[in-house]
C-alpha cells in the first residue's frame, strides 16, 4: 500500500494561503491498483474584492484508469474550475490532485477547451499538430499522427483551411483532433459540444465514442447535459450548487461500443436520465435561488 502511494505523484499542491499539502492516505481498496487520478480534500477559493468565495470544497475522489468519467452540475458549481486545476491553469487553495505515474514519456493530459480555442491564425493541420510541434516530435511522426486523427474526425479535406472557413462543429473537431493527436494519458473535455446544435452534437458524440473505443484513455468530461453524460460516461459525478461538492456518483451500466441513437431508444437509458435529473433538480433550483438572491442584493444596494 505504501508502494502504491509512492507511485502517485502530486503535480498540483496547495500553494496559496500558506497551507501545507494534505498528506495522502494510501487507499486499501483493490480499485486503487488502477487508480489514475486522486483528489484529496480539494478546495478552491476565489477572492472577489474583500469577500472570499468558495467554488469547490471537500473533493475526495478516485478515478480509475481507462474510465470515461463525466461531471454534471448546475452552472457555477465549480466543475470547470476542477478541470482547470487538473490542466495546470489554476492552483488548489487546499488539498491535492495526484496522478498515477506511468513511466512513459507521453504527456500527462490534454484538454479540449470550451468554445472556440483553436488558433485562427493556423490552418486545420497546424492546429491539430500544435502540441506535437511544441514538443519537437519528429516531422514524420507528426504527419502520421495528425493525418490519422484528421481522418478520424473527417477533416482530411480541410487540412489547409483556416478556422473562419469552418463551421462551429468542424472547429470543435479540430480541437478534439489536437487533444487526441497529443496522445495524452488523460483527456480533459470542458463542455466541448455545448455551443453546437443538436444534430452536430449527436454526430460528434458518436465520433468521440468511436475514437475513444480505439484508445480507451481516461477521460474527464464536463457537461451540463444529463443526456450527454449518460450517453458518453462510464461513471457520472453529480455536483452540488456552490460550493461545489460531490453529491452523488452513478455507474452507467450500458455496454460498449455504444450507438448514440440506439442507446437513447432503450428504456433503461430514460430511467437513468430520470434518476440523475432527480439528483440534479434540487441543485439547479438552489443555484437559481442563490443567483436571484445575489441579483436582489445588488439592486437593493
Amino acid at each position, binding site marked *: 500500500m505504501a508502494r502504491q502511494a509512492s507511485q502517485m505523484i502530486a503535480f498540483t499542491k496547495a500553494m496559496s494561503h500558506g497551507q501545507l499539502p494534505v498528506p495522502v492516505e494510501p487507499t486499501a481498496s483493490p480499485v486503487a491498483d488502477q487508480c489514475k487520478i486522486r483528489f484529496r480534500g480539494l478546495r478552491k477559493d476565489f477572492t472577489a474584492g474583500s469577500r472570499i468565495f468558495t467554488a469547490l470544497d471537500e473533493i475526495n475522489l478516485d478515478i480509475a484508469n481507462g474510465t470515461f468519467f463525466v461531471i454534471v452540475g448546475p452552472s457555477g458549481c465549480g466543475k470547470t474550475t476542477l478541470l482547470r486545476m487538473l490542466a495546470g491553469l489554476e492552483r488548489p487553495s487546499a488539498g491535492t490532485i495526484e496522478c498515477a505515474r506511468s513511466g512513459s514519456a507521453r504527456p500527462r493530459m490534454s484538454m479540449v477547451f470550451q468554445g472556440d480555442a483553436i*488558433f485562427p491564425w493556423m490552418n486545420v493541420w497546424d492546429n491539430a499538430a*500544435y502540441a506535437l510541434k511544441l514538443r519537437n516530435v519528429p516531422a514524420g511522426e507528426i504527419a502520421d499522427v495528425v493525418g490519422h486523427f484528421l481522418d478520424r474526425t473527417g477533416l482530411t479535406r480541410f487540412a489547409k483551411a483556416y478556422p473562419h472557413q469552418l463551421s462551429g462543429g468542424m472547429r470543435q473537431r479540430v480541437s478534439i483532433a489536437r487533444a487526441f493527436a497529443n496522445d495524452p494519458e488523460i483527456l480533459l473535455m470542458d463542455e466541448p459540444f455545448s455551443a453546437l446544435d443538436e444534430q452536430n452534437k449527436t454526430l460528434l458524440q458518436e465520433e468521440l465514442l468511436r475514437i475513444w473505443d480505439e484508445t480507451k484513455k481516461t477521460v474527464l468530461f464536463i457537461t451540463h447535459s444529463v443526456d450527454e453524460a449518460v450517453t458518453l460516461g462510464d461513471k457520472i459525478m453529480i455536483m452540488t450548487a456552490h460550493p461545489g461538492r460531490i453529491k452523488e456518483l452513478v455507474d452507467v451500466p450500458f455496454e460498449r461500443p455504444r450507438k448514440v441513437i440506439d442507446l437513447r431508444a432503450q428504456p433503461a437509458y430514460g430511467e437513468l436520465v430520470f434518476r440523475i435529473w432527480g439528483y440534479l433538480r434540487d441543485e439547479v433550483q438552489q443555484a437559481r435561488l442563490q443567483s436571484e438572491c445575489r441579483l436582489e442584493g445588488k439592486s437593493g444596494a
Partner: protein
Amino acid sequence: MNVQAGSPDFVTVASTSAKRRMSLGFGSAVTDRIMTLVSPLALLVVWELAGRAGLLDQRYFPTPSTIFSALHALAVSGELWSHTKASLLRLALGFLVGGIPALAIGIFMGLSRPIRLVVDPLIAATYPVPKSAILPLLLLIFGLGEGSKIAMVAIGVFYPVAINTTAGVLTINKVYFEVGTHFEATKWQVFRTIAFPGALPLIMTGIKLGAGLGLVLIALAEMVGAKQGLGYMIWNSWELLAVDTMYAGVLTIAVIGFVLTVFFNEVERLLVPWNRTS
C-alpha cells in the same frame, strides 16, 4: 391558381443580384483593387481640365500634363531616380532601425504587465511631441549626414508600430494563451506561435501608419542640410522657383506613398490570410 411573374399580386423581393451584373465578370478581389485606382485618377483628370479651362493659376497650379513632362525630363536625366533612391534608402533603413525594436518592445509590453507599466508612461509622454520639433536636436546629435535622416524616420515609425503591436497582443483572446500554457509552450514558443501571429493584424496597421509617417518625416528632414533626396529636390526647386520640379517631387512622394500602401496591403493579404477583414 397560376400567378405569372410580374403579376400585380406579387412583388419581386429577390432575383439575380444587380451587384453581380455590375462586376462585369471580374472576380471581386480584382474589382476591389481596380476601385482603389479610380479616385486618384479622377482627381488628376479634374485638375487637368480645370487648368486648361483657366480655372487654376498656372504659376501655382501647373496642369498635370506640365508636371508629367517635367517629371519625364527629370527621369530622363537620371536626377529623379538618384533623389528617389536616396530617399527610399533612408526610409528603408529608418524603417528597420525604428520598426524592429518597436515590434519587440510592443510584444514584450503586451505580454508583460510590469514591462507595460514601466514603458507605457514613457511612450505616452513622448508620443505627442511633434517629430518635426526634434529635427534640430537630431541634427545636433547625428550631424547633417545620413544619421539624422534615418533617425527621423526611425522615430516616426517607432510609435505607431510599438503602440499597435502592444494593442495587438492585448486583444488576443486569453484562451489562446491558456492553450499555450496547458500544452507547456516555452516563452519563446508563446511569442512565436501565439503573441506574434495573434498581434499581426494590428502590427500591419502599425506598419502602414508608420510608412505614411516615415514618408512625411523623410521629406521634411531632407529639406534641411541634405544634398540629395526628394525633400531636397522640392526645397531646392522652391529656391530656384522651379514650380514644375516642385510638383514633380510632391507627385513622386505621393506615388511612393500609394505604392507603399498597396505593397503593405498585399503583404497583409499574404501574412494574415486568416483575418476576415483583410
